[in-house]
C-alpha cells in the first residue's frame, strides 16, 4: 500500500517537474530553431540574436511586472497605452528641461501613477480592474496621440536627440535593467508574504478575504509593480528608438498575455503563477516570431506568420492547461 502511494507521489512529482521544465525546454528548442533557420539561410546570426534580445527585453520587463496583476486573476489591457503615455511624457520632459534624470523620473512616476489610477478607480467604483484598464487604455492612447501629433507636426512623432541614450543602447545595460527588475520581482513574489497572499487571492478570493487578506492592498502592490515594469519598458523603448509615435508599444498589451502563457503561467492566475514565466515566455514568443518570419517567405503574403503564431499559441495553451484540469488542489 505504502509502495503504491510512494510510486503515485513520485509519478506526480515527475509530472510536475516535466510541466515546470516544459517552458524552459521550449525556450531552448526555439533558440535552436532560430539558430538553425538563420544559419541554413546563410544569414548573420549575431544580428538576429541582437534583434531578438532587443525586442524581447522590453516585452520581458513589462510582462514581469504584469505577472503581479495576472496572479490576482485580473489583467491589464492598458499596459501598452501606459508605455506609450509614459514615453511620451518622458520625451516632452526632456525636450523642455534637457534633463535625463528628470525624464527618467517622469517616465517612472507616470507609469506607476497610471497603473495606480486603474486600481484606485476599480476600488472606488467597485468594478472589475480589467474594466478600468480598458477605459484607461482609450484615455491614455488618446492623450498621448494628442500630445504627439500636436508637437510632432509634419514629422508625425516626437523625439529626443538620437545620441542622448545611444551609450545605453548596449546588451549589458539592458541585461542589468532586466536582471535587477526580475530579481526585485522574485524577491517580493517569492520571499515575502506579498506573493503568497496574491496567489491565494488569485486562486480563491473569497476564502482569502475571509482569512483577513486585504484585496485592495495587494491589488495596489500588484499595480505598482506593473507600473514599475511599464516605466522601465518605456525607458528601454526610448533607448532602442529615440522617437515616439502613436504606434509606439501598440502591440505590447496583447504580447504580454501571449508571453505569460508561453512561459507556463495560467491567465487565471492563482497558485501556479511564476515570475520567471514572463521572462521565459517573452523570449520564447519573440524567438518564435523571428523564426517564423525567416521560415515563411515574407513575400508570400501578409499576416501568415501571425496565423501560424496563433496556432502555436492555441497549442501551448492546450498543453499548459493539461496541468490545470486536475481535480487535485495545486501543491
Amino acid at each position, binding site marked *: 500500500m505504502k509502495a503504491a502511494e510512494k510510486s503515485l507521489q513520485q509519478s506526480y512529482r515527475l509530472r510536475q517537474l516535466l510541466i515546470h521544465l516544459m517552458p524552459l525546454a521550449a525556450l531552448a528548442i526555439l533558440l535552436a530553431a532560430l539558430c538553425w533557420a538563420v544559419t541554413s*539561410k546563410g544569414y548573420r546570426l549575431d544580428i538576429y540574436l541582437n534583434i531578438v534580445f532587443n525586442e524581447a527585453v522590453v516585452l520581458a520587463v513589462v510582462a514581469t511586472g504584469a505577472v503581479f496583476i495576472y496572479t490576482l486573476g485580473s489583467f491589464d489591457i492598458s499596459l501598452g497605452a501606459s508605455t506609450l503615455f509614459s514615453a511620451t511624457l518622458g520625451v516632452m520632459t526632456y525636450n523642455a528641461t534637457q534633463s535625463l534624470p528628470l525624464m527618467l523620473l517622469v517616465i517612472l512616476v507616470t507609469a506607476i501613477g497610471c497603473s495606480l489610477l486603474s486600481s484606485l478607480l476599480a476600488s472606488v467604483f467597485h468594478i472589475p480592474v480589467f474594466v478600468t484598464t480598458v477605459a484607461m487604455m482609450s484615455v491614455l492612447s488618446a492623450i498621448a496621440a494628442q500630445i504627439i501629433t*500636436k508637437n510632432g*507636426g509634419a514629422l*508625425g512623432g516626437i*523625439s529626443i536627440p538620437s545620441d542622448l541614450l545611444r551609450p545605453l543602447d548596449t546588451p549589458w545595460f539592458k541585461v542589468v535593467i532586466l536582471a535587477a527588475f526580475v530579481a526585485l520581482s522574485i524577491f517580493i513574489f517569492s520571499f515575502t508574504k506579498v506573493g503568497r497572499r496574491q496567489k491565494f487571492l488569485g486562486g480563491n478570493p473569497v476564502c482569502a478575504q475571509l482569512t483577513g487578506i486585504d484585496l485592495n492592498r495587494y491589488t495596489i502592490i500588484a499595480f505598482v509593480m506593473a507600473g514599475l515594469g511599464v516605466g522601465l519598458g518605456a525607458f528601454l523603448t526610448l533607448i532602442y*528608438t529615440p522617437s515616439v509615435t502613436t504606434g509606439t508599444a501598440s502591440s505590447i498589451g496583447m504580447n504580454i498575455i501571449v508571453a505569460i502563457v508561453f512561459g507556463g503561467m495560467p491567465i487565471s492566475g492563482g497558485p501556479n503563477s511564476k515570475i520567471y514565466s514572463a521572462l521565459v515566455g517573452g523570449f520564447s514568443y519573440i524567438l518564435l516570431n523571428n523564426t517564423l518570419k525567416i521560415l515563411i517567405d515574407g*513575400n508570400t503574403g501578409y499576416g501568415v*506568420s501571425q496565423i501560424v503564431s496563433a496556432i502555436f499559441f492555441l497549442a501551448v495553451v492546450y498543453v499548459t492547461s*493539461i496541468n490545470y484540469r486536475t481535480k487535485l488542489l495545486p501543491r
Partner: protein
Amino acid sequence: MMKKSMKKLFALLLASALILSVFAGCSGKSTENSADPANSPAGGNEEQSQAPAPANEKPIKIGVLVADVSGEEALGFRNYYENYIAKNYNVELLYTEQLTDAAGERSAIERFAAQGCQAIISFSSSDRAMQVETCAQNKLFYAVASGMLDDEQYETYKTNEWFVGQVGPSMETEFEAGYAMGKYFADKGAKTIAMYGAFIPNPMHVYRAAGVIAGMGATYGGASDMGAIVGQIFGDQGVDPSKVSGGSVELVSYFQGYGETTTDELNAAIQAQPDAFLSVGMATTFFTQQLNTAGIEFSDIDSFTSGNQAAMTDGKLVYLAGKYSSSIGPIFAAVVDAVNGNPIRGEGGTAISVSQSYLVATDTASFDKYYSADQGDSPIYNKELLDTMIGDSVTYADFQAFVEADRS
C-alpha cells in the same frame, strides 16, 4: 490519467514539429533559389527568375520598408516593383510586414542587414532619421520613396554617404495638391462643399486639408498661410468648420477617419446637399458608391487605378490628383547606382532630394492618358527610361531633370 495526458502532449509536440517542418520545407525552395544565383539569376521567386541577368551575377538585394499594406496606391507601388522591376533587373526585393512604429522599422532594417541586403527603400515614416542612422550603422544604402524627410532632417543627413536620397511629394507639394483641388471647385462656382479629412492628424492629410481651405479662398481661424493653418489643424486634431471663414465657398459638413460613426457622418454630409464633396484621401476607396448614388460630384487625392477610372467614367468623380505606380522607378535607379558604386550626389556630395508633383485628371480623357500609360508591362518609367539613369555618368542635374520631366 498521466499516461493519457502525456500521450496528448507528445501528440501535440509532434504536430507542432510537423507544422514547423512543412513551413521549413516550403521555405527551403525559396532558400535554394535565393542562395544559388545559378538557379535563379534574379532572386528568390519564379517571376524574378525571368530577369535577363547573367547566371553568374549575384542579384542586388534590396529591403523594402512598408507601412501601408492595403491601400490602392501602396499595392500599385508593390505591383510595379514585383512584377516589372524584378522581372527586368537582376534584383531581389524583400518586403516587411506592416510596420507601425519606429522600433519595428529599426528591427526590420537590422533583419535586412542580417539577410545580406545592400540597400533599403522606405515607404514607412515613423522615424526616418532613425532609419538613416540604422542603415548607416549597418552599411546599407538608404532611400525614401514617395515621401521626404523634413528640411531639418535632410540638412542633418544630406552628406551621409549611405543616404542615397528622396523622391516624392514634399509637404509643400501636398499643400499645393489640396490648394489646386479647392481652387478648382471654387473656380467652378461651387457654393457649398463637404470635406473628408481622411486620417488627420496624419501630416500628409493635414497639409492637403490646409491646402483645400486656402484653395477655397477661405481662412482658418483667421489664418491664410500654410504654416498657420497647418499648425491649427494639428492643434484641433481635425478641421473645425466653425473656424473656416471668408471666400465664396461654404464648408457645410466635415468628417474624418473611418469607424462605426462614418456611415452616419457620410449620410449627414450627403443630406447637407453640398455642391461637391472634397476628400484629401481614401474617399474613392470608402465612399464612391454612396456619392455616385447621391449624385454628388466628388474629388480625391489618390492614384490612377481601375476603380477610380470607373468612378470617373460612370460615376461622379470629377477631379483626381494622383500618383502613378511607376513614379517610384527613379529612386530605384538611384539605389542601383549607389550599390554599383556610382552614387548620384549633388553639390558638396549631398544626397538626392527631388519633389515629385501629382498629376491631375478632371475628365475621362485625361485620366485614361495617365492610367493607360502606366500599365503592367509598359509603365511610364519603363526599363528603357530607367536605364538612362543607371550608369557611372549620371549627374544630379540629369536625375533631377529626369524626375521633373513631364511624362504625360
